[in-house]
């Protein structure tokens, strides 16, 4: 009995050494798996309960001239096109959209090592893998899939990822566009049951400097169903083959934020200077404080007295 046990112990030890010598099977970092409930307080105007930012609201986005021109020519009605209605956003949507995150690991069968983290959350973007196995990014000439291509490493227990090869996407939910040369560096920083996701979006075409976005999530008990809002193509008033857009100088929503909030148009049009505190001095004399809020018929949800109904974390 002792002899058989001794052989079993030695065999197990040798196998473990063998695995470790091949760099296999040592779990790294933290467990990010679970259903993470979005707490959309930071961007309440761009996400529920307000639901959508105004069409021309590029405050705080470091748009280049090309980016601003592209944004002003883009009509949010493009998402009502039958051809685009059920299309996916690129992975930037995890920091731009309203939904929570469902994250789970893909593990290597023999060793249990995490070969990828899968990030999902909603039908608005395709679940995308964060490859943890050290594989290189494809050639810059490789096709850009819906999921982009993302690799990750643990840096001081923060999952740090690099996403390339994204399709044309958005910088805000009013469809201010990012180009297909945009890349994203994302950090998943867990503090207990709170997850802070910080993304830096670089876009050599539409941005003049990195654009930082942060969203927070809280670990929930109720499983999040990424397929809970299946998309079906319907008629939203845009005929097939028509691409809603605005010609230069003809965007009718240029002054909407000014009318609603008194913020000058030069601020609304974005640009890197709108990211920094000193910009306030520039517009101080131009800011006109809105009249006291009075609910009017036709006001969009979220204006004038609506507290925003945030569900508890279950």
């Amino acid at each position, binding site marked *: 009995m002792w002899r058989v046990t001794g052989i079993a112990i030695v065999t197990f030890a040798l196998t473990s050494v063998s695995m470790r010598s091949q760099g296999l099977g040592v779990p790294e970092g*933290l467990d990010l798996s679970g259903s993470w409930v979005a*707490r*959309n*307080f*930071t*961007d*309440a*105007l761009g996400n529920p*309960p*307000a639901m959508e930012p105004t069409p021309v609201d590029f405050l705080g986005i470091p748009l280049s001239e090309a980016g601003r021109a592209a944004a002003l020519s883009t009509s949010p009605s493009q998402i009502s096109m039958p051809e685009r209605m059920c299309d996916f956003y690129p992975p930037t949507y995890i920091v731009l959209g309203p939904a929570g995150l469902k994250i789970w690991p893909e593990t290597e069968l023999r060793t249990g090592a995490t070969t990828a983290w899968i990030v999902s959350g909603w039908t608005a973007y395709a679940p995308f893998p964060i490859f943890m196995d050290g594989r290189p990014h494809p050639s810059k000439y490789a096709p850009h899939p819906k999921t982009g291509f993302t690799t990750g490493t643990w840096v*001081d*227990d*923060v999952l740090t990822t690099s996403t390339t090869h994204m399709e044309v996407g958005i910088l805000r939910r009013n469809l201010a566009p990012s180009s297909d040369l945009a890349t994203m560096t994302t*950090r998943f*920083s*867990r*503090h207990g049951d*709170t997850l*802070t996701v*910080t993304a*830096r979006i670089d876009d050599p075409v539409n941005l003049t400097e*990195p654009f*930082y976005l*942060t*969203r*927070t999530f*809280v670990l929930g008990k109720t499983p999040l169903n990424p397929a809970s809002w299946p998309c079906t193509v319907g008629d939203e008033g845009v005929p097939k083959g028509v691409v809603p857009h605005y010609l230069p100088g003809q965007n009718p929503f240029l002054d909407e934020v000014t009318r609603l*909030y*008194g913020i000058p148009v030069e601020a609304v049009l974005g640009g890197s200077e709108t990211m*920094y*505190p*000193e*910009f*306030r*001095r520039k517009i*101080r004399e131009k*800011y006109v*404080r*809105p*009249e*006291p*809020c009075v609910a009017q018929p036709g006001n969009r949800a*979220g*204006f*004038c*007295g*609506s*507290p*925003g109904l*945030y569900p*508890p*974390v279950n």
Partner: protein
Amino acid sequence: MVPPRKRDYIGIPISVAGKKVADQWDLARDEASNDQCASYGPPTIMNQPTRVRISWQDDNTLRIDTDYGMQTRVFSFGQRPTQRRRTRQGTSVAVWEARRGRGAMTARYLTVTTANMLPGYLRKNGVPYGEQATLTEYFDIFSEPQGAMIMVVTAIVTDPVYLEHPYIIASQFKKEADSSKWDPTACSARW
């Protein structure tokens, strides 16, 4: 930061009691008062258009100064300092936390809990937080290309009276090479 319209509390999980208080807000009254710093307390100051200076006051005390509102926050490592009366910035206790039990020293973030704050505003238009409010903040530092550094502050405000749920917001800061853009401005109820 400018005051939104009265009764604009979108984005804040305000309770019924909080709405009652917010609906009483009066900008003129705030401007006439001796204290226009109600919206510069710890729950919101790090989410304002501010620059911050961070320094060690002594071996156990980290100090954060803001140019917006010229506020000073003091983080004590160790026991919460005794304080006879409430102050705008309250008392803050800081600790370095590892994300997991046996994490490396570098794999830590700063957790700061703040209490004993004077009642104030979560927003300049009078959305309140009260004496029972507490604040937990997580400070993360990330290295960026070309030696740049980013600090992300995740703040969780709880208030059993004025909030229905914890109010969670995150702010990003970029480290600058010098203080040339430091621009102290006094508290203002209007701007």
